Each structure stands twice: as C-alpha cells, then as structure tokens.
C-alpha cells in the first residue's frame, strides 16, 4: 500500500541558516505520528515544509507524488493543513469557513455541487460543529474556532492531515475531544501528523513519534520508545520519572 507521506533527506534553509538537516521518515495510513522536540527544534518548519510552504532540498512524496511538482490545487486534495492559530478574522458563517475546504474542487462562477455539500456536512458532523454552523466564526469560542478550522481541513477529504500544536490553549475536555476525533480519523484510514509540545499527550494519543533537536532527527519509533528518559532526557536536559499515572520531569542537574 502506498505511503501517505514519505520524507527523504529533507533540508531546509532560512537565509544562511540550515533549520532542517537530512530529515527522513514515512507515515502510513491509519497512524498518528507526533513531531516532538524542544523549542526551535524545527517541528513547525518541518510540518510547514510538508504542507508546501517552504522550498527544500531532498524529496517529499504525498501518496507517492513529488510535492514540488504539485500545484496548490493538486496538493490540496492530498494533504490538509491545520494551523496552530488561523489568521481568519472575518465574521463569515462557520459553515462558509468549512466550505472553503472544497475550493480546490470548484471552478469559476460555480457554487458547490451536491457532493461538495455532502463532504462539508460530513466534516461538520465529524467535528461536532454542525450545531453552530450558521454562527459567525468571529463570535465562536477559541475551542470552537479550532474545531471549525479542523472541519475545513476535513472537508478537503485529504487522507493526510497535518496539525500544528492542535491542543495548545484548549481546556482538558476540548483536548480529549480533539484527540478522540483524530483517533477516529486514523481508524477510518487517515494518516495524521501533528506537532506536539506536551510529551504526555504524545505518549497517550499517538502511535509513533519523531524527535527533533536543532533541526536534526534524533529518534523515530513507537512513541513509548522515544518518550523515555534515555532518549528524551539528554535532548530536553531533564530527568524523566515514570510512575503508575504517567511521568514527571525534573531538571537533569537536580536529579
């Protein structure tokens, strides 16, 4: 079966600084993969490069198609990007925001086809946003807005979804609901790649993790094998203490 995402020897430079070096990993359909690492490790840059925002050396394949050969319109049905914070601040109805996900299927003056509308409705249901679909986006709570932007990504029907810190600023209930939705999507055959800051969330909700440090790949494997003291500790400069309920971190110097 084709891989959802295949990243091969990718390098990204900003000015004269190399921010990603020789990054390789692949993602299969049906799995959740976390990109983890300290601040400045290159997680968001890697996610944005996969989404097509930055030029890069190496190769990125989306469903075995080279990313750099795809136009934005060809790329959109293959990969859905969910930003940490959407820059949308216009008071358009939430359903119209979700309908933007069908842009790549539309032409000229034409409106949405019945199949487009059906995809929009499925996205609303999957994210539990149908009940406030007619409310202006700018009048929604922060958590509701995040779900609407996720619904817009789902409306593209892309089977690879990449999310930048999806749980940041969400309360515990909203976070659990979000990860529940992402797990459901994975079980339906989507591939999900997400940048996560909280290692506990990575450990609890994702299948595999890619640990980055200073733009380099440090470890890739099952999340439980990556988020452990001998791998995480040196990178973050902490000592992980596991107990029956999870783990705690202490500064390495104290431990």
């Amino acid at each position, binding site marked *: 079966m084709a891989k959802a995402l295949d990243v091969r020897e990718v390098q990204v430079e900003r000015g004269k600084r190399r921010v990603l070096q020789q990054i390789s990993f692949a993602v299969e359909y049906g799995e959740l993969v976390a990109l983890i690492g300290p601040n400045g490790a290159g997680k968001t840059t890697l996610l944005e490069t996969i989404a097509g925002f930055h030029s890069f050396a190496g190769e990125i394949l989306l469903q075995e198609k080279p990313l750099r050969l795809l136009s934005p319109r060809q790329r*959109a049905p293959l990969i859905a990007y969910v930003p940490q914070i959407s820059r949308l601040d216009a008071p358009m109805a939430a359903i119209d925001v979700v309908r933007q996900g069908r*842009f790549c299927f539309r032409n000229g003056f034409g409106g949405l086809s019945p199949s487009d509308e059906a995809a929009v409705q499925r996205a609303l249901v999957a994210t539990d946003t149908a009940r406030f679909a007619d409310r202006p986006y700018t009048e929604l709570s922060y958590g509701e807005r995040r779900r609407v932007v996720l619904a817009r990504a789902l409306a593209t029907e892309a089977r690879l979804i990449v999310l930048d810190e999806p749980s940041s600023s969400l309360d515990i209930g909203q976070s659990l609901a979000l990860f529940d939705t992402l797990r459901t999507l994975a079980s339906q055959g989507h591939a999900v790649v997400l940048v996560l800051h909280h290692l506990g969330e990575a450990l609890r909700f994702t299948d595999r993790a890619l640990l980055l440090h200073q733009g380099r790949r440090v470890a890739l494997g099952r999340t439980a094998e990556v988020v452990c003291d001998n791998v995480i500790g040196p990178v973050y400069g902490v000592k992980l203490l596991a107990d029956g309920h999870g783990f705690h971190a202490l500064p390495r110097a104290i431990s």
Partner: protein
Amino acid sequence: MALAAGVVVGHGSLADPGLRDTLLRLRAARVAAAFLTGAALACSGAVVQALFRNPLVDPSILGSTAGASLGGQAVLLALHFLPGWLPHLVPELAVPLGCLGGALVALFIVLAVTEHRQSMLIVLLTGFTLSSLFLSTGGFLLSLGQESWEVGRALVSFSLGGLGGIEVQQLLLAFPLIVAGILAARFWSGPLDLLLTGEDEARSLGLDVKEARRWCVVWVGFMTAAAVSLGGNIGFVGLIIPHAMRPFVGVLNRHVVVVVAIAGGTFVVLCDLLSRALPSRSEIPIGVITGLIGAPVFLLLLYRSGRELHRG
C-alpha cells in the same frame, strides 16, 4: 430613481423642445459615467480590501489611482503645449488612454518590485511611495499648466474630479474595462474569500496566491484607470462603500463585489446630482462632494467598528 433624477435634474429646462434631446443625451451620458465610475471604484475598493486583508485600504493604495491621474494630467498638458504630439488620436480618447497608461505603469512597477518579495507590506509601501511620487509629479505638471489659464483650470478640474462634458467615446472605452473588471472580481471572489484566512492557509486550501494577487492587481488597475478617465480623482468611494455594505451583505466577496458595484454607482450618481443641484456660482467638483460625505461617514464607521472591537 437616482438614475432618473440624474437625467431630469440640472441647468436647462427639459420643457424646451429644442434643447430636450441634447440635454437628455448629455445627462444620460453623464449619469452613465457617474454610475460606471462609482461601480468601478467601489468594486476595486472591495477587491483591494480583501486582497490586503485590511478594510482601511482603497484602490489608491496600489498607486494606480495616482498613476492614472498623472497620466491624464500629462496628456492634458501635452495636448495643449504639444498639439502635434498625438495627431491621430481623438482628443476625447487621449486623456482616457493617458489614464490607462499611467495606471499600467504604476501596476507594472508594483508587480516588478514585488515579484520576488511576496510580503504585503512591500506591496503597500511600494504603492504608497508611487502614489507620493505621482502626486508630486502631478503637482509639478499643475505648476507648468498655470502658464495657460485654460490648461491650469482643466488640470485643477481633473484633479478635483468631475463628470461634466463626458463624451460617448469615453464611455465606450471605459464601459468594457469596468464591466470586465466587475465580472473578473466576481469570478475571483472565491480566491478573495480564501485570502481572508491568510496566504499560507489559502495556499494549503489550493489557491495559487501569487497568480490570484497578480490578476486582482491587474483588474483593479484597469477599473481604477477607467474610473479616473471618466471622473478624475474621486476619493472615498472605494473606501466607504464596501464598509457601508458589508453589514448588510456579509463578508463573502461573491455577494460583496456585486452589491458594492451597484451601491458605489448609485452613490456617485447622487453625489453628481448634488454637485449640480447645490447652489453655487459654478458646479461643485464631485471629488469635493464625495470627500465631504465620505470623510465623516468613514470616521463614523471607524468609530463604530472600534467600539464593537472594544466590546468584543
């Protein structure tokens, strides 16, 4: 109703059978020019506001209005001081073509400067700098034109805006540009809506941002050039009409561009009506009327939106 009033109201009585046909023809051309000018400026305003994700910009931000104005002024001056310079061109068409040329020069510079620098800030700064340069050059041309009273008056009248003495040829030149521009704006309304969400997100949803921006800039340039060629420099229409209409039609550009075109056209027809109907020794320049109405209305809208933002 505004269109009908525009045809009926004015100096000269329609009761005179000898004058009726001429007056009706002249006024109909003037009303059509006012409507097209307003439609073009308002629609351009809606497009640039979406393009720059900023409701406080108007078509002049790209420098195309000042460029068109400078082109028109340059041709007016050339027609007087260098009469053999444009031997094969009907004078009524020379000014509109000058406007078009000026607007296209401005747009060419904006696109050239921003080709490899995608930042909207660079576009805004380039447009602002060009506007300043063109306005200064226009001031210089105005000083040159003072040597002849007629030319000086024509230049001042052009820079203040006015729809008097519109010829059918001018309308025929501007009409297809403006209609095509409005249709293009309607066609590009989906991409404009996507740009409300920022360039990266728009790109991720399938929009070729560079192409969309380039085409929108070109169409805005054509529309503003056509509007300036008809009515001279008429301010505030592109700024306040989209602002005033959005509370009624929402923010989706497929509705906005069409409604603001109609509202902008109607607004300029009414302003032109006022410029003719208000008691004065001579006709009040329409740019003065739109400024007197537009500035306080814009301040009111700004105050209200600021208050809502503060509450929110």
